Every structure is written in structure tokens, then in C-alpha cells.
């Protein structure tokens, strides 16, 4: 088992290397460099050239790549010329909002998906199953943006059930009880929107896994022992059927994160997805690159973690 985990961790190195190369090459083609935000018209071109030389911007590409990686490893991601502050500070401000949104969306996703998948698998071909299958069909087909807009229009503007702008009511004082409640209220609609579409894949996997497991020998044994149906399904079958969910967690995380750009934009939510769109529009590439790198690392590491979890949880993989 340890050998497999080690092997899986080692794959991470070429992946991170490839990711950093791609972003570095992309950054190379972006207009502007570390000096763009600092230059003012009174500085002569010769002085700029001297500063470029001092900063090492005229050195060969591979040297600059290693410099870039080293400074990133030391926590220096450059300055955002739009905000005139270190990139880390700008992102740090938005990070908690996106984390909260993703967390609530994930909780909603699994809260909705697991009961649905179990019911659909257990009562196959019955009315409940048919309804759930139709729901997953819609959830897979409908584009996130259309669904989100319709939700905002219906539940935000027309029915006024939820606030639809920002992450918190700006009139409330920070730290009060009402402040936290307002924050939660602002999260519900965007998180639910993402969750309702995100459940489809999980429901489908869980349903087919349960159906596959129903006919296996261990289920027959449990039944023969006289265990009630509830125990058979909720304890024995569910445990085996939920394994692919664990495997898909890293993938679900990446999906969720990429969806936040659209969702945060629609809800004017001050998170990282919105920040990314703003920094690309404002040509603030140092912030954009750092965000891509961050999301990339989250994706690569997240997938690795779920693979490792799979190796630990499912002995069948270890044997292969």
C-alpha cells in the first residue's frame, strides 16, 4: 500500500512541473511585467532598462523560470499593479468568501445527492426512481449560467426570498450575530444553485453502484442472516457503493471551483472567481496567474488526495 501511495505522490512532481511551465509560458506572452505598475512618465527609458537588468528580466528564459518558481516557493507572488498591493494580500481577502461558498455548496451537494442516490438505487424502476432520474437528466442538461439566472430572477427579484448581491449586508456591523446570519443568507441561493446541478453525477454513480452491488454474494449472505432491508441497504451496500464518491471528490472539487467564476459573477459575490475575471479584464496578470496556479495546485493535489484515499479505503486496488 505504501509503495502505491508513494508512486501516486511522485506523479505529482511532473504534474506540478507541467502546470508551472504552462503558466510561465502563458505569462511570458502577456503584455507587461513586474515594472509595469511602477513606471511613471518621469523615468527615462535608460533607467527602466537598468531596473530591468537589476530585476533580472533580461536574463534567459530558463533562469527566469527558476527565479519565478523559487520566489513562489518563498511565498512571493509579485505585486498586483491594479490594487498596488502584494498579490497574496489581494487574494487573501477574497479567499475566505470562496472557501465558505464552496464549503456550503459541497455540503448541500452531498446532503441532496446521497439520499437521492440511495432511494433511486433501492426503489429501482419505481416512481421515486423515475422522478430522480428525470431530475438528474435536467441537472446534466441545463447550463449553470441559465439555471443561475433563472434562480436569481425567480427567487431573488420576483419572490424576494434571498438576497442576491454581495456576500453580506453592508449596513450591518462586523462580528454581530445579525452579520453572520446575513452572511449565511447570502450563501444559500448561490450554493444551492451549484449544488442542485452538481448532484447529478453523484446520484447517477451511487444509483448504479447500488444496483450493481445488490446481486453480489455478500448481500445474499447478509439477507440470509435475516438482516432487515434497511440495514442491508444503509449499512452494507451503501458502504461499498460510496467508494466511487470518494474517488470523485477531487474531481468534484475542481468542478465546483471552476463553477464559482460564473456564479460569483452573477451574484456579485466578492470571491476568487470574480477576482479572476476582474483581474483579467483589468489586465492585472500577476493576480490572474497566481489564481490559476492556486486553482491548478488545488486540482492536482485534490485529485491525488482522493486517489490516495481510494487506495487506503479499497483493498481491491492495492492488490492490482
Amino acid at each position, binding site marked *: 500500500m505504501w509503495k502505491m501511495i508513494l508512486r501516486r505522490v511522485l506523479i505529482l512532481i511532473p*504534474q506540478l512541473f*507541467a*502546470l508551472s511551465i*504552462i503558466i510561465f509560458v*502563458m505569462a511570458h*506572452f*502577456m503584455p507587461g511585467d513586474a515594472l509595469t505598475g511602477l513606471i511613471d512618465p518621469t523615468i527615462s527609458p535608460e533607467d527602466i532598462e537598468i531596473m530591468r537588468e537589476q530585476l533580472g528580466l533580461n536574463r534567459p528564459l530558463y533562469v527566469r523560470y527558476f527565479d519565478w518558481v523559487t520566489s513562489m516557493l518563498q511565498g512571493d507572488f509579485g505585486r498586483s499593479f491594479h490594487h498596488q498591493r502584494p498579490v497574496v494580500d489581494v487574494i487573501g481577502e477574497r479567499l475566505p468568501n470562496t472557501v465558505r461558498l464552496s464549503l456550503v455548496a459541497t455540503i448541500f451537494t452531498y446532503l441532496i445527492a446521497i439520499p437521492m442516490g440511495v432511494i433511486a438505487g433501492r426503489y429501482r424502476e419505481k416512481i421515486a426512481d423515475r422522478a430522480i432520474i428525470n431530475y438528474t*437528466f*435536467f441537472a*446534466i*442538461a*441545463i*447550463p*449553470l*449560467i*441559465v439555471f443561475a*439566472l*433563472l434562480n*436569481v*430572477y425567480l427567487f431573488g*427579484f420576483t419572490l424576494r426570498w434571498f438576497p*442576491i*448581491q454581495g456576500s453580506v449586508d453592508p449596513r450591518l456591523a462586523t462580528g454581530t450575530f445579525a452579520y453572520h446570519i446575513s452572511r449565511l443568507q447570502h450563501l444559500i441561493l448561490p450554493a444551492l444553485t451549484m449544488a442542485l446541478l452538481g448532484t447529478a453525477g453523484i446520484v447517477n454513480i451511487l444509483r448504479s453502484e447500488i444496483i450493481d452491488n445488490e446481486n453480489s454474494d455478500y448481500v445474499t449472505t447478509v439477507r440470509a442472516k435475516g438482516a432487515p432491508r434497511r440495514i442491508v441497504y444503509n449499512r452494507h451496500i451503501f458502504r461499498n457503493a460510496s467508494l466511487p464518491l470518494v474517488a470523485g471528490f*477531487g*474531481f468534484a472539487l*475542481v468542478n465546483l*471551483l*471552476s463553477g464559482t*467564476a*460564473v456564479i460569483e*459573477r*452573477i451574484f*456579485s459575490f466578492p470571491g476568487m472567481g470574480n477576482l*479572476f*475575471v476582474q483581474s*483579467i*479584464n483589468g*489586465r492585472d496578470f500577476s493576480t*490572474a496567474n497566481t*489564481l*490559476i496556479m492556486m*486553482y*491548478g495546485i488545488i*486540482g*492536482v493535489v*485534490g*485529485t491525488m488526495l482522493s486517489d490516495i484515499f481510494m487506495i487506503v479505503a479499497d483493498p481491491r486496488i492495492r492488490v492490482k
Partner: protein
Amino acid sequence: MDVNKTPSPFRVMCREIYKDKLAFCSLIVFFTVLIGVFIWAALLDTSEVMRQHLLRGNLPPSREFWLGTDSTGRDTFNLLILGTRNSFIIALIVASITSVIGIVVGLAAGYYGGHVDNVVMRLIDFMTMIPTLMFIITMTVLLPNTIRNFGLILTVFGWTGMARSIRMVSLRQGVMDYVKASKTLGSRNIVIMFREVLPNILSFTIVNLTLSIATTMGIETGLTFLGFGPPPTMPTLGLAVANAANPLAMQLRPWLWLPAALVILVMVLCINYVGQAIGRAADARRRRV
């Protein structure tokens, strides 16, 4: 009818769609909308529709302007017609090209297996891990904003899904007897892959192609909404939906974006229903009796 004759895949497909009332209705609705849109759009002049008339901005729907006008006085209904046509064409082209790439790569990986498969799968895995949407957005800013570049970027990041599914089915085909027999007879690998394996997975491929048209329409809308779509001189459904980015317009003038959102919804659902029926045709075990 000759009972012993095996029905052709196309016949099976038609039969499946015809038998499934929902899919059949979807197909009719889809083509009615599409043909109507194409005929209407042929009567319109894009530059004329895109011309701004500042004196008649933000009109509500009326007899003259069926869906009102936008803030620059353009007829929303005509924009919707042109947008539907353009969005569909973009989605069709992008989906077709990504499918061809996906088929070639997926077939090669599934058929050859071994090292080829390993390399391809590492690449695909990697591309599903990285934040694709962010890369797409960055690329649209770095490259000149033309419709060709837009399609190119979507293609570069869009082929992996198709390749993954094609690889999965061709892995199963590769070990079958007919492939072995053909190898024994000395057929070239290329011939086996494209003349013998491909026809067997053709219906599966068509399902994926249909669904990827719907997905691409969604992606185009999302990107245009975020401001990274095709050039703004080209009316698309995304451009109409992007009107909703302004909270005031979204609330007070729903005719600007709601019809486009509903058109996307209807088109995407129709495509998926038809795709589901074709999918049943592709898999004999799921066919309806």
C-alpha cells in the same frame, strides 16, 4: 419486411427516436425552431440589426418590436434570431472538430493500449485536473478576439471528454474476436481502427457529438456572459443573456435576456432528449421493446 435482415444502425436510431414520444417531439421542436431561425435570419442583414438607434432605447415589447429593444435601440427579437443561428453554428463546428480529435485520439489509445494509452490518459487526466475555464479565459485575452480564435481555444480544451469516452468503448472493442480475426488476416491497424472498430462505436460517437453541441452552447453562453465570448459584433445567445449582467436590466427589462435563456434551455433539453434516444439505439440492452 425481411425478418432475417439486420436493420442498419441508422434505421435503429430512427426507430428509437420514433418510439420515444418525448424524443420525437423534441426532434420536431428542435428542427422547427432551427429551420424557422435560419429562414428568418436569411432575411435579416446582420449589420442592419446591429446598428444602434439611440432614440428608441429600452422599449418594452410592442407590436413593432416583439421583444422590445435593448439599451442601444436594437430589436431584441432580431438579435435573438441571429444569435440562435450563430450560437448553434459555433457549437456545431466546435463540437464536430473536438469530436474528430476525440475519436482519433480515443481510438488510438483504446486500440493500441500500452504506452500510447498511458501517455494519452496522463495527458487527459492532467487536463481535467487543471482549471480549464481559467485557461480558456486567459487565452481569449491573449489572442486577438476573432471567432476563429474563439473556436480554436474551445477546441484545444474541449476534446478530452470525447477522447476519454471513445477510449473506454474502443478498449472493449480492441479485444474482441473480429479485431483479432482481422489482425490475423493482416489488415493494417489504421484500417482496423477506422473501417472496423469505428462503425461499431458509431452510434455511441453520435450520442456524444449531440450532447457536446448542447454543452458547447452552454460554455459559449457562460464565457460571453463573463465578457470573454466571440467578438461583440457577432450576435450570439450569450450576448443576449449577458444583458442580465446588469442587475437593473435583469430586474426591469427581462425581455432582453429571458427569451434567450429560454431558447438555450429548450434547445439544450431537446438535444439531450434526442441524444438519450440515440444512446438507447447504440446499446441494444437499453432499447425499448
